[in-house]
Every structure is written in structure tokens, then in C-alpha cells.
């Protein structure tokens, strides 16, 4: 009896999934910028060379433009974004009490648009949503990411964590296998980063465009030959929460520049 129980326990140990129970945060914590070349870093730190600043500039204009049936602009309620938006991006994704669900920054912008401005939501990867989310996140530049995991968002956090450790796609790779176990190692001509979202939205040279974190998730999923969920999917927002927790303490760099 005793032997058989051990055998059963041993069998379960063998088939149990890669442990998501104790997610590790990378140490030392490094932003994607540290894995990029000197040229890319220079492009990011020079505010004129940084193409992402074109979207921040557009965001600044959109902030003051009336939208929807309300005739109100973001500035009508939030005044100067440099004051009102300071620190906001650092605590997202957050639970939207009105909808009792987790929203990211883009979701919050769209919630404002529909509730306060009576305007149509902006599409992911549209010029306008990229510009506004870049502009808002930029107001928190250099501030450390700080999301709090509590009773309200615990389930979201766990779903995001499970996504992170799940093997996906034809290549059967999880986020953790590259970004937790193999960060710092080379993959062809690139050095694998820790996979943080602290610089988003970013200007990616490969996209020749600005793009959101969800677009980057889609890139990765395509990379492992997995089905790409559409941008805005709740699974991505749960994942964003896990990533924000994982990256806490890293300063926001928006707009980032990556290859």
C-alpha cells in the first residue's frame, strides 16, 4: 500500500506542468533597452531622433481636440496631462470600478471616450490610439512601474501568469522559456530580453511604425507559430498585469525604440 502510494505520487510529480505556482522575477531586472544596441539606445534617448515622439506630439494635439457628441476634449476634464496623467501609466492595468473588470491604458482611454465624450472607441494600432496612449504613458516616463495585486485582480494575475508559463504554438514554447530561462542569451543576431512592457507603445524598426504591447504579443505568438489573438483580447490584458507585476520597479520609457 505504501509503495503504491509513492508510485502514484511519483507519477503525478512527473506529469505536473512547469511550475507557475512560484513565478520568479528576473534578477537583476533589466529593461529591453539594455539588450538593444548602442544605436537603438541613442535613438531612444534623443527625443528628436526618437520617431515615437512624433506620436507623442500627435497625442498632445489629440488631447486638446473635442471628440464625440460631448464636444469635450481630454483636456476639458483632465486639464494639463503633464500634471493629471503623471504616474497613471505606472499603475496600469487596473480594475475599472465602473465595469468591474481589468483594463489597460488603451482600454481606459476608450472607456473615457465612450462614457465621458460619447465618442467611438479607437481601434488598436490606429494612429490616434497609439498617439494618445503614447502621450499619456510618456507623462510617467522615468517613474517606476507599480501595480498592486489584491483580491480584486488576483484572478486576472493568475490567468496572466498561467498564460506566461503555457507552452504555445508549433514550436511549443512558453514566454518563460525565452524571457525567464534564457534572457541574455543569443538567438541568431539578437540577445533575448527579459520581455518587459515598460517602454510601450514603442517604435519598432521592424514595423517601421509605432505599435502597442498587444502587437508585440502577436509578434511573439507568430514567432512560435501560435495562433495570434486579436489586439485587445482579455487574455492579453491579464498577461499585461502579470508583466507589470514582473517588471515592477522598472521605469517607464515610453516611447521606446526597439529593433
Amino acid at each position: 500500500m505504501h509503495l503504491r502510494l509513492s508510485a502514484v505520487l511519483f507519477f503525478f510529480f512527473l506529469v505536473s506542468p512547469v511550475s507557475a505556482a512560484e513565478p520568479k522575477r528576473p534578477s537583476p531586472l533589466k529593461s529591453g533597452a539594455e539588450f538593444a544596441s548602442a544605436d537603438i539606445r541613442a535613438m531612444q534617448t534623443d527625443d528628436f531622433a526618437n520617431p515615437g515622439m512624433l506620436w507623442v506630439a500627435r497625442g498632445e494635439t489629440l488631447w486638446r481636440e473635442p471628440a464625440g457628441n460631448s464636444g469635450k476634449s481630454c483636456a476639458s476634464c483632465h486639464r494639463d496631462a503633464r500634471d493629471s496623467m503623471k504616474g497613471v501609466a505606472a499603475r496600469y492595468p487596473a480594475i475599472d470600478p465602473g465595469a468591474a473588470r481589468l483594463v489597460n491604458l488603451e482600454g481606459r482611454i476608450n472607456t473615457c471616450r465612450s462614457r465621458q465624450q460619447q465618442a467611438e472607441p479607437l481601434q488598436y494600432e490606429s494612429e490616434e490610439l497609439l498617439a494618445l496612449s503614447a502621450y499619456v504613458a510618456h507623462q510617467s516616463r522615468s517613474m517606476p512601474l507599480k501595480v498592486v495585486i489584491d483580491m480584486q485582480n488576483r484572478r486576472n494575475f493568475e490567468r496572466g501568469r498561467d498564460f506566461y508559463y503555457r507552452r504555445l504554438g508549433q514550436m511549443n514554447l512558453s514566454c518563460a522559456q525565452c524571457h525567464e530561462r534564457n534572457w541574455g542569451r543569443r538567438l541568431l543576431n539578437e540577445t533575448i530580453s527579459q520581455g518587459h512592457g515598460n517602454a510601450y507603445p514603442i517604435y519598432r524598426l521592424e514595423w517601421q511604425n509605432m505599435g502597442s504591447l498587444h502587437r508585440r504579443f502577436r509578434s511573439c505568438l507568430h514567432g512560435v507559430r501560435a495562433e495570434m489573438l486579436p489586439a485587445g483580447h482579455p487574455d492579453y490584458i491579464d498577461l499585461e498585469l502579470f508583466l507589470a507585476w514582473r517588471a515592477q520597479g522598472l521605469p517607464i520609457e515610453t516611447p521606446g525604440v526597439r529593433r
Partner: protein
Amino acid sequence: MLARVLVPREARRGEVIQIRISIRHPMETGFRYDNSGRVIPKNVINSLVCRYNGVAIFRAEMGSGIAANPQLQFYTVAQASGEFVFEWVDDAGQRGAERAVITVTG
């Protein structure tokens, strides 16, 4: 067309100053396809001119070999207070313009 220019606000007469311009433009090569498999037509900013108090001090003829969201950096000698005017046009005929003012002392 959205663009940013960087011109020193002040300079001394005879000083060589750096001029920078950054333009939001996809510089579409004509070699890319959309999701339906149709070719996205070529459309690049093909010419740009910078005039300093009315006189052209820099011109660029560009093709699809210039990266998206083009950036240019060049130099000129500060001569008199006045205005820099940047004008450009793309293959579709869309025009863009930006200006910057400079005060030249001495």
C-alpha cells in the same frame, strides 16, 4: 503632414548651426502587400527644400531607400535673423511645410 523641426532659437552671425527635421510618413516602397494580397502603392516624400530667409540652403531628392518617418540633419551658416521654411511633397502630391524662427546676433 506631421513634422518636427529643430533649429536653434539664437545664433551668432557666421556660426555653423545644425538643422534637424523629422516627418511622419510611411515612405511606402511599393513592394509591400496588404492583407488581401494587393500591392500597397509606392508613395514616398520625393523632394524637400529648406529655405532660409527665402534662399534655398538645402535640398533633398529622396526615394524609397530612405527609411520610414524620415529624418534629416544638415548644417547652415547663421547669417541674419529670420525664418526657416521647410517644404516637401510626396508621390501622391501631398505637401507638407514647417517653419522655425531664428534670432541672429552680432
